[in-house]
């Protein structure tokens, strides 16, 4: 199916900058942003403040997709999908720049801006924030 670019375009604040909504009444934070706090409901109208989530967090759980990938991800198997915790807010994301066997629940991850998918070879490229393990560099710069 062909979609208007507007469908992904309207999500870019949340995807590019991890913008989310904080209900100023109860302090709960929602990602993606919401216009209404489902806890405070009507009282939250006009009290949903835009904040950005921390760019570091930890892996809550993950799965490595080896087969039956989603359309647009066919050439990328195995790829790693994960839920990460960013200062108490959990989001669904992809893990990148790592091998499946080097990650564990609880590992620290950092945000990176990446291309997520594209509408075919001629269509719009959709970008977003995903995560990669924070690695402690072990090797030194080449002493040539």
């Amino acid at each position, binding site marked *: 199916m062909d979609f208007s670019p507007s469908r992904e375009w309207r999500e870019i604040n949340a995807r590019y900058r991890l913008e989310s909504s904080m209900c100023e009444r109860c302090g709960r934070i929602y990602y993606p942003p919401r216009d209404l706090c489902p806890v405070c409901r009507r009282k939250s109208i006009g009290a949903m403040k835009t904040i950005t989530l921390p760019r570091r967090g930890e892996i809550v759980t993950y*799965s490595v997709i080896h087969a*039956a990938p989603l359309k647009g991800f066919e050439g990328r198997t195995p790829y790693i999908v994960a839920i990460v915790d960013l200062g108490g807010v959990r989001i669904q994301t992809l893990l990148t720049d790592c091998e499946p066997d080097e990650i564990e629940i609880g590992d620290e991850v950092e945000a990176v801006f990446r291309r997520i998918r594209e509408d075919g070879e001629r269509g719009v490229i959709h970008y977003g924030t995903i995560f990669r393990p924070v690695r402690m560099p072990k090797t030194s710069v080449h002493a040539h």
Partner: protein
Amino acid sequence: MRKVAIIGVGMTKFGELWDKSLRQLLVESGLEALEDASEKRTLRGKDIEAAYIGNMSAGLFNEQEHLAAMLADYTGMTEGNRPATKVEAACASGGVALYNAYLAVASGRYNIVAVCGLEKMTDLLSGSVTDALVSAADREYEAFYGVTFPSLYAMMARRHMHDYGTTLEQLALVAVKNHRNGYYNPKAQFRRLITVEDVYRSPVIADPLRLLHCSPVSDGAATIILADAKTAKKYTDRLVYILACAQASDTLGLYNRKDLTTMESVVSASKVAYETARLKPKDIDFVEAHDCFTIAEIMAYEDLGFCEKGRGGKMIEEGLTEIDGEIPFNPSGGLKAKGHPVGATGVAQAVEVVLQLREEAEQRQVKGAKIGMSHNIGGTGSTAVVTIYGRDV
């Protein structure tokens, strides 16, 4: 509220039914249900006052919407221009259709109502099936990142293993058990025994889940006929009553759950169902559970109250949910072996419960079953329907 009975059940074979169309499946299961209900007097199509059809996504699977009209048209309900309604709640569509039909009869609005569950998934190529199914998740904030349904349940499984020490063997045992039960179900998609080794040898789909942890892509339909107790007795004496039917919701996205290893919707729906039926888990004789992936059945043991949170793996390991165990789960073979035409599943579960309670389940019969339960899940637990059935009121 009036007492509601199931007077007739029908179901097509589940599987890759290449030669059957949506409408053929619908008519086949419907006719079987009508025949089944016509024990003392013939139940005619025009006796049915309203119909509900559970279907997840014929729009995506078959490019056909407006299935309620198709149902009315092809089953003869247009005579009298009776109302038909399509209900969608992802893989819980069948269960939610049942819930709505139950309310329609219990409230007194109608005396006889048909509930159909239907899905024809093999018209799409497999890559597109994955994509259609993931519409049950959060498209813009889950599927956008390449998430598939196996991977969502795999993430629950990994967390369950991490938090409670659930093992890959325990997960595999669920598939082994359900294939063993399905072997005796003539309508099951897979009538093939498998071993734990077979599960380990099957290809990885979404680690830690392998192919044999996953329910298949299936075609199929199931229909049940509901009636109030008084009307019901005019048609048949093989009555099965709905003692309770409860539906509950949770967040659309898995990532928004506080606890990834508990389906709050199931906990909540089952609590209401137990209270309504004035029963406890120990009173239930067997369960038809939504084992779309093996981890889902283990979580169902816990969330339905048959064991403490985290003990689910032990339950399968100790054989408690085998067909001759303390609380048999999925005597039909479950979604795993019987097949999972998503919108049909919730209704097909009711069909199996009825057959069991009528002691018509032949070689897979749970001995002495008097109270049965079904557990139908939509998405990652965003919707849950828990129903309790009994032979006696």
